[in-house]
């Protein structure tokens, strides 16, 4: 399940997931064709063997789920041949149930907290612990090779146990996880002799003081990918240098900001075979004094002929930027989202990046910088523009001008995340027409309830055009001043939308009704600060079993309303979450609702009430 090609941190690999995940098997038993039962088993056995061999080739989750519904025998064989297990909500099914059904799993992909937890909308220690899964897998899956966790809590002990329990363990990817520190990493890497991939992505790593880099076993390593750019603590550079020197298969290396450009140089000359590089600080640790020898960074970059993905640039000194010129022509992914550079500094680089498919950047480049991107990057598939200043009501370095330019220049665009202070319907409509391949459209106008600054109108028409014209759209995030009309459009045209994020939008219950009634493929719905109440939710209940989860915070839901829903839908877990210090009161601060085969979870903290 490694993402191939360009560095892609989007959540939108959901293509693989079918609307009815592995939860449906219990309710669908009746649909199974009657087994041939007492008749001779031989033909069935042959069939099953054939099926088993064929199904080994089936990798798509969605296809596998469909296959498992055909009949009992197909269900059984599919379960035997599923080697990659994806669980989109760790509370939807218990570890025991999952390991009982799928007995030959080699790779586990597990997701925990809902996305809005990233924005401090959920108190800490809510749950999503990896530990029960780890313990449940130790015996049934001795050949487990890979674990991918997103938004899960992992402890130091978990990491140690992971390495101890699975002798052939090869890949660990932790995205947006927390609860562990350098001690855990040290135990993990020292015990995991076959380790190929250790990717720590946007995770919070506690500083226990351990020098974990030194704990990699001596001798030649199998390491292919080492990503630790999110670790906010210094590392032992000499140990890292030795590690890189003895890792001939290393292709991906993303350094943290405690690695200076001089140190980066030393690593690069050891590893010219790198394909993905996170450059760390990208400046010297001290201000270069007169005594320092200026290294030829350009040569180091030029030697890395296979480099396709660059990131890092955490404290960039623009004077060093020209060093990357030699690799620009081959780059497919460039992440400047921590680099405070302006348009003039960007232009000489971006003008060489003809093959670029993924570009992450700060709005410091302004509309002018985006115009430069549009002029060169004709192959662009994914663009993310982050704000340097994440505040409302300030001047906008990027605006509708930048969006318009991108829509005209980068017509193959599939995914966009754009933070801005101002946006017009016109530009959004233009993008909907120029970029028909859009699958992900996330526009964040940072001023709440902001209308189109030119016409004064709400942003309904813009988002309406997106759902109307972008026929492949599966993920949408809306912002700005929006009336119920916008949701009417979304419900009417957003037939493939699986993930929808709403904030400070809508006028009445109708808005939510439109969405729940219209968006038949909706899986994940996250709403905050919008005037939707109990009636709206009730009208869409029929759809709730098809959704992975529903999040509503600071809306107009009452405890009573949520209670009724909990009674009406036994297989939904209805969690009411309140801030630690708030009293239980009539209005529900946060509702987090998800389907589950297990009923209420036992590890919920005090401030979570399961109705």
């Amino acid at each position, binding site marked *: 399940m490694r993402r191939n090609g360009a560095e892609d941190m989007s959540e939108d690999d959901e293509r693989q997931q079918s609307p009815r995940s592995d939860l449906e098997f219990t309710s669908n038993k009746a649909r199974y064709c009657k087994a041939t039962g007492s008749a001779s088993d031989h033909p069935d056995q042959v069939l099953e063997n054939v099926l088993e061999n064929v199904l080994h080739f089936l990798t798509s989750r969605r296809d596998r789920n469909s296959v498992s519904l055909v009949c009992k025998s197909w269900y059984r064989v599919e379960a035997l041949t599923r080697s990659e297990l994806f669980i989109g909500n760790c509370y939807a099914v218990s570890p025991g149930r999952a390991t009982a059904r799928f007995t030959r799993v080699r790779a586990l992909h597990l997701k925990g907290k809902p996305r809005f937890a*990233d*924005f401090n909308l959920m108190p800490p220690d809510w749950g999503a612990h990896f530990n029960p899964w780890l313990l449940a897998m130790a015996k049934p899956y001795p050949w487990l090779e890979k674990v991918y966790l997103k938004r899960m809590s992992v402890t130091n002990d978990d990491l140690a146990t992971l390495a101890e329990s699975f002798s052939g363990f090869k890949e660990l990817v932790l995205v947006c996880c927390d609860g562990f520190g350098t001690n855990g990493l040290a135990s993990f890497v020292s015990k995991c002799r076959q380790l190929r991939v250790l990717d720590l992505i*946007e995770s919070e790593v506690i500083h226990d003081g351990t020098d974990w880099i030194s704990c990699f076993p001596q001798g030649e390593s199998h390491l292919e990918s080492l990503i630790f750019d999110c670790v906010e603590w210094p590392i032992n550079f000499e140990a890292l240098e030795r590690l890189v020197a003895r890792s001939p298969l290393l292709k991906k290396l993303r350094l943290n900001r405690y690695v200076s450009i001089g140190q980066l140089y030393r690593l690069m000359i050891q590893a010219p075979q790198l394909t993905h590089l996170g450059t760390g600080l990208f400046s010297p640790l001290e201000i270069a004094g007169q005594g320092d020898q200026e290294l030829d960074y350009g040569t180091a970059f030029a030697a890395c002929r296979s480099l396709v993905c660059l990131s890092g640039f955490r404290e960039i000194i623009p004077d060093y930027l020209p060093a990357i010129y030699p690799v620009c022509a081959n780059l497919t992914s460039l992440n400047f989202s921590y680099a405070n550079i302006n348009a003039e500094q960007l232009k000489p680089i971006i003008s060489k990046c003809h093959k670029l498919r993924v570009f992450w950047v700060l709005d410091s480049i302004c509309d002018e910088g985006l115009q430069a991107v549009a002029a060169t990057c004709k192959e662009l598939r994914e663009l993310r523009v*982050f704000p340097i200043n994440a505040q409302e009501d300030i*001047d906008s370095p990027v605006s509708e001008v930048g969006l318009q330019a991108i829509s005209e220049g980068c017509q193959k665009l599939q995914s966009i995340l754009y*933070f801005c202070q101002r946006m017009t319907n016109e530009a959004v409509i233009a993008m909907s027409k120029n970029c028909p391949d859009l699958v992900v459209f996330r526009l964040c106008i940072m001023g709440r309830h902001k209308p189109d600054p030119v016409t004064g109108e709400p942003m309904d028409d813009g988002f309406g055009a997106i759902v109307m014209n972008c026929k492949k759209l599966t993920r949408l995030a809306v912002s700005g001043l929006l009336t119920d009309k916008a949701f009417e459009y979304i419900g009417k045209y957003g037939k493939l939308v699986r993930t929808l994020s709403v904030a400070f939008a809508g006028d009445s219950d109708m808005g939510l009704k439109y969405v729940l009634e219209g968006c038949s493929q909706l899986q994940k719905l996250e709403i905050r600060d919008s005037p939707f109440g109990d009636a709206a939710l009730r009208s869409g209940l029929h759809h709730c079993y098809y959704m992975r989860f529903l999040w509503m915070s600071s809306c107009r839901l009452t405890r009573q309303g949520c209670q009724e829903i909990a009674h009406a839908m036994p297989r939904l877990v209805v969690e009411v979450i309140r801030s630690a210090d708030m009293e239980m009161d009539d209005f529900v601060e946060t509702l987090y609702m998800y389907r589950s085969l297990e009923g209420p979870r036992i590890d919920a903290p005090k401030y979570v009430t399961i109705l």
Partner: protein
Amino acid sequence: MAFEQDLNLEATELRLGLPGTSDQSAEKLASPSNKRALPDVNEESMSRDHNSNVAAAAKNCDQETAPPTKAQVVGWPPIRSYRKNCLQSKKTEAETAGIYVKVSMDGAPYLRKIDLKVYKRYPELLKALEDMFKFKVGEYSEREGYNGSEFVPTYEDKDGDWMLVGDVPWEMFINSCKRLRIMKGSEARGLGCVV
């Protein structure tokens, strides 16, 4: 320090311009700050640099008062705290990086302020001062200071001494300079300049 007694009302008129400048040259003053400020925020940053007296009298005083910011809402805009923290430190660095010092010129009724970080070396600073105050300095030489100029740039250092601008390396200068004073050549004789 004798200021010229001048009943020229225009010279003492409170406005954004400098003594002896027209409104047009006031616009030029925006350029030294270009390095960090966004083009449309230039005027705002320049107006902040003025003495509050002048700023209050200026027509552009509405740019001085920032619009009241909405109360920060939890989790909005939706940026992960990791990213916010990384960029926050960058921002504070950028904001506090300026070394603003007062610049006085003999004969001018009010002082100016400049950001020394904006300049990389002495010629740039001197050019900016020349533009700002409409004077010319001669060539700097170690032996003779600013030979042949009517005005001489000096600065007060951390020890409280008045020094000639240009003697020490640039980095040392900007880190020790507390304020600048553009002295009349005649007065500067005491510093060893030959005028």
